[in-house]
């Protein structure tokens, strides 16, 4: 057994699920001959339009549905195995909890199922309630929560056991941008601890932000599967970001590139904040400057200590956001310097090299990755993904072709 094989957390082999009608006849094939492997420490995105078989796959992985054919393994064991289940956390697509319990009681109850002792349950419960921003609503019955608040407590219950493998089915469904950002923060934080995460979502930008690999399903079949960077990179183009240039400078640069390098400039524009970043900054300012109070969900605190990588300093909300937005400088951005972290540092060397007619050196040579340059994302050709989500199909592609 090689190293990769040992690290396999999830494995499906020819996994197939047929739903039958009243008379036992096959009605729908929800999952068709699915072969997947998810490795330890990986954030894996499962994509596909409605009815593509994502949730069915997840429920078979959890032992809630039984395969019609093939098999699924969690940590090398059958999904119904209690020891395997003790290592997983699951946030269902719809948060359905006991409505008469409040947040603290809910987490305490699920903690008991993991046989956590009383003091540990209390510690984790308090930390998770704080983390998901429900401290102000902790004593209200869950039945009185909004959908987003229910999502938050649902997320907390999935983390009560500090799982090795976390399955998140549409985790940001019903959440406000703050909650969405928090979940993405959490996913990345858990990844640093070597946790494995399976993320199923319709929100492609969420998946793109956090996943190492994605698989795309359609009609129960796996269409493609591979690293996000490889699937989305447009290898035939190069993007350069500079300090602001005047119109004249742009024209000169364009002419120079055409004449000297024989390269056409495809587009020139000004990088923009993403709406998510802008929204977060405004809300944070309101919280910090106006001290506005709310009976609903709060922004949420730092990632609970028991979920953080050992030896890590606590990551405050804003700092964590900064870290997420600029992986190469996680601590550099303090406070709300959102714009700063969105911008690629000026690469004068690249311009000089361009001016000298040489190919720019890849930043990978310096230990960084070109894929971290955010403005590229706005330019990515999403026709494959969007086409699938729209249900209009899409072009086949990817590094690992699935079975069709």
């Amino acid at each position, binding site marked *: 057994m090689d190293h990769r094989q040992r690290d396999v957390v999830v494995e499906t082999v020819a996994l197939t699920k047929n739903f039958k009608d009243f008379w036992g006849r096959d009605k729908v094939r929800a999952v068709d001959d699915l072969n997947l492997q998810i490795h330890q420490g990986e954030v894996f995105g499962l994509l596909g339009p409605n009815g593509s078989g994502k949730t069915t796959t997840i*429920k078979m992985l959890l*032992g*809630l*549905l039984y395969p019609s054919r093939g098999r699924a393994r969690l940590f090398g064991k059958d999904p119904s195995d*209690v020891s395997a289940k*003790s290592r997983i956390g699951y946030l269902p697509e719809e948060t359905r*909890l006991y409505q*008469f319990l409040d947040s603290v*009681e809910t987490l305490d109850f699920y903690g008991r*199922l993991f046989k956590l002792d009383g003091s540990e349950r209390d510690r984790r419960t308090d930390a998770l309630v704080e983390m998901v921003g429900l401290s102000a609503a902790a004593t209200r019955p869950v039945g009185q929560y909004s959908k987003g608040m229910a999502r938050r407590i649902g997320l907390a219950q999935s983390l009560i056991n500090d799982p090795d493998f976390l399955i998140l089915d549409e985790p940001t469904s019903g959440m406000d941008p703050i909650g969405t950002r928090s979940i993405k923060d959490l996913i990345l934080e858990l990844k640093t601890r070597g946790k494995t995460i399976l993320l199923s979502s319709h929100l492609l930008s969420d998946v793109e932000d956090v996943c190492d690999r994605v698989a795309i399903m359609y009609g129960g079949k796996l269409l493609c599967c591979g690293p996000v960077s490889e699937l989305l990179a447009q290898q035939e183009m190069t993007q350069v970001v500079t300090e602001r240039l005047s119109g004249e400078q742009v024209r000169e640069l364009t002419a120079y590139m055409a004449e000297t390098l024989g390269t056409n400039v495809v587009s020139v524009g000004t990088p923009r904040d993403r709406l998510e970043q802008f929204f977060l900054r405004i809300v944070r300012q309101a919280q910090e400057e106006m001290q506005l109070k709310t009976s609903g969900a709060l922004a949420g605190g730092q990632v609970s200590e028991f979920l953080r990588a050992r030896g890590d300093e606590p990551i405050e909300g804003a700092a964590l956001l900064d870290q997420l937005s600029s992986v190469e400088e996680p601590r550099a951005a303090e406070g709300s310097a959102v714009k700063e972290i969105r911008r690629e540092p000026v690469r004068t060397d690249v311009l000089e090299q361009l001016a000298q007619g040489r190919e720019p050196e890849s930043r990978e040579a310096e230990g960084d990755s070109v894929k971290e340059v955010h403005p590229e994302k706005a330019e990515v050709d999403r026709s494959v993904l969007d086409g699938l989500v729209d249900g209009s199909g899409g072009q086949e592609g990817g590094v690992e072709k699935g079975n069709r």
Partner: protein
Amino acid sequence: MGRIWAIARLTISEAIRTRLAISFMALLAGLIVLIVATASGDGTVAGKVQMFMSHTIGITHLLLSLLVIFLAARMVDQDIRTQRIDSLMTKPLARWQFLAGRWLGILLLATFLLGLVMGASYGVVRFFSREATGVDAVKLENQVLVARTSYRPSLPDVSEQVERIVRERGQDEELAELTPRKMRELVRDRLITASRTVGPQQGRTWTLTGLPKPQEGSSDATDLLTLRFKYEPSKNTEGVAEYQLHSNTILGQWIIGRRESPNQHMWLDAKPYRTANEIRVPINAIEADGTLELSFINRDPRGVAVNFPMEDGIEVLVRSGRFGPNFVRAFLLVLLTLVFLTTLALACSTFLSFPVASLLTVSIFFVGLAGGFLWDSIGLWGTDQGTATFLEVFGKIVREGTVWARVSHTITFLLLHLIPILDVGIFTDRLIDGRMIGWVEVMAGFVKLVAVQSFLLAIFAVMIFRRRELGRVIV
């Protein structure tokens, strides 16, 4: 156990906070208050206490049975229908642990509520008993708030006489048409009936054995034994003014105790027939060897023969325990029926929706309530008055019945054997009549209802639930 306990706690919390249990308890409390306010019985305190206990236990059993059925049938179905089960069963919780937790939680709640009601009822009974004075108090202490064991005359061994009569009179026109077996049964019945019949101005003595030996020098007037008897006359009697005898009575003399004994008690009176009559005498009438001699002399001048029916014609009731422990045993027997119903409803809910599971369980519950009546009804049908064993009856149907009779009666008998008798009135009547409910009966009930029937249902439920796909996917 920790996980089962977590589910049990959740179950109790759910039952209380969703107000289902509270609604039932409010209804039950209201009905008990109504019973307290209206209980009168036969006008005596003893009658009032008997009526109160009978109605309270009956109502409590009915409402708590419905409560556990609805809770058990609803909770599993709700968990699956609302998909709460998704979050639950992806935790390290085996499916049997989930069912066991639900079962335990419902039963803990039911036990608490039953204990509460029974405890309150016991308090009310003691409160009522303070009102009793004189004869009423004696009756209450000796007939109601007591645990008495029943002793009956053993049936005489008439087998030799049966064979002799069959040999001598087998060719008689009356007997010749019968099968040998039927002939023997008929002769035996007549001989036994004759042994319990006393002609005009005749007497008969029965000796009861195995009674508790009286304490040395026991003559406490409050420590009494009760002779209970029921007359069945050969013909109805008319009133006779000369002897001050009323219609529908028998004048009889009872001698309780050995004739030459100083502790012998004699009693002469006219008592109504076809109804239970009681005579109470000091317990020292019992001999030191635990025997008691009973003699009856038919003194009725109207020339009527008296028969004592087999079932309840003659019995002696002797105090063998206290009311309190008897009350606890009655409580446990009610609880055993709740255990069975909870298990049944949970088993049904593993593969049926709430409405269907609860309807099915309630139907079985009502069949169980009527079980004694059904047994009597069907037992009378060609089954030697209910005395035949199941195999005998089954064999008889297969041998002699039509096809329809074979099918219908086989199904009926199988169902009656599978569905236990859940009518608590059987032992409630004994409790309020001051009769002993023994630990042996409690253990027998436990073995039958819990260790066998509930256990088998639980295995069935776990097997079904393990195979069931709990995830809901709309495709």
